[in-house]
């Protein structure tokens, strides 16, 4: 399920964080689903368990997952987190870059909007309550 690129400059724990988030967003992991135990995932991917632990801690800090003592780690039921201004700024920069790329590929503003809608739909997130 997770595909780690050991050559990447992106730290391994960060890759785990991003891929779990992507899996939740795409619906491959649903709220309440149990994540593999640290030991199991570490062994499966042959990765240092402390790295997995660090990734889980980060995911928990972000509110994506919750750990229930003695029961395991689960995808959070209600994801309610407000991004801080720094994160929002980083996101804007991200989008801005994408929009510039799109512009130079010859896409009109309308087409860019359409593309964003399409991507949101792909993950079944359109029309959902804004607070989700």
């Amino acid at each position, binding site marked *: 399920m997770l595909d780690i690129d050991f050559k990447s400059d992106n730290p391994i724990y960060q890759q785990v964080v991003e891929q779990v988030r992507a899996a939740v967003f795409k619906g491959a992991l649903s709220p309440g689903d149990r994540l593999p135990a640290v030991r199991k995932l570490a062994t499966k991917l*042959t*990765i240092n368990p402390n790295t997995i632990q660090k990734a889980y801690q980060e995911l928990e800090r972000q509110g994506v997952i919750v750990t229930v003592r003695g029961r395991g780690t689960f995808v959070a039921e209600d994801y309610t987190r407000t991004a801080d201004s720094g994160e929002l700024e980083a996101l804007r920069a991200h989008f801005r870059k994408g929009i510039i790329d799109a512009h130079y590929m010859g896409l009109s503003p309308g087409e860019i909007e359409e593309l964003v809608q399409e991507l949101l739909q792909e993950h079944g997130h359109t029309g959902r309550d804004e607070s989700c």
Partner: protein
Amino acid sequence: MLKIENLHKAFDTTDVLRGVDLQLSEGTILGILGPNGMGKTTLLKCVVGILEPDRGKITWEGMNLLTSVEAKYCVGYVGEQRNYYPRFRVEDLVRFYRMSYPNWDHEQYRRLQGIFELPSEQRIANLSRGMKAQLAFLLNLSIMPDLLILDEPTSGLDPAVRKEVLRVMVDQTAACGTTMLVSSNNAGELERICDAVAFIRDGEIALQGPLEELRRRFAAVHVIFDGEMPAEIADCCDLLYVERLGRMYALVGRRPLLSRLQAVDTVYLEPVDTSLEDIYIYYMEGPNHE
């Protein structure tokens, strides 16, 4: 915690270790990388107590590893040479270990034997090198060590077994919090399983730290200059490695190299990923290393 302080060891007139300092906290895996003949094995042998250091101190949880019998019970060692009694059968050796180590876990042994498939009625003398390596690994994990010293544990093993060995190491650390000190010439392997790595060169620790931190300390770029490479780049102390293909240079250096490059005229500048292996090669063996 494993604490190695100012460790010195000489053979005849050759100083092999010249003041090694290392610390390793419980439940972590430290990888040691270094060219052959630079003291990796000597260091590990000193830690286990096979060699007596000339100077310096090695303690595990405050116990002196050289003298404490109690400490020896909880330390496993998989060395490069596996000098087991050749006339012993595998099962005899297992019994010998079982009697010697109070924490021997037979369940664990059975489980691992299922993975590595060693014939227990075979005599040691008839085992191949790779089989002996697996046997040493299996025995030393079955004594349930708190500290496990591994000297090139995967060398001479086929890729499938190699992968199993790494998997078992990771699993053991996750399950039992086993601390491991492992030497290897395979940077790719260490990168996966280690918390931190140390480069050893000329009997000293040349570089050490958590992997991510080491990576952050170096940078690799592809760059095209407006003309020749400016002298302030070519001569700067942060530059470790240069390769040229037409107008394009591949440079590797310490992180400040990036800002130095941004300060000069470039036609093209693209940072590229650096693996531990890259860092190792450029840092230890690069044409213009320190």
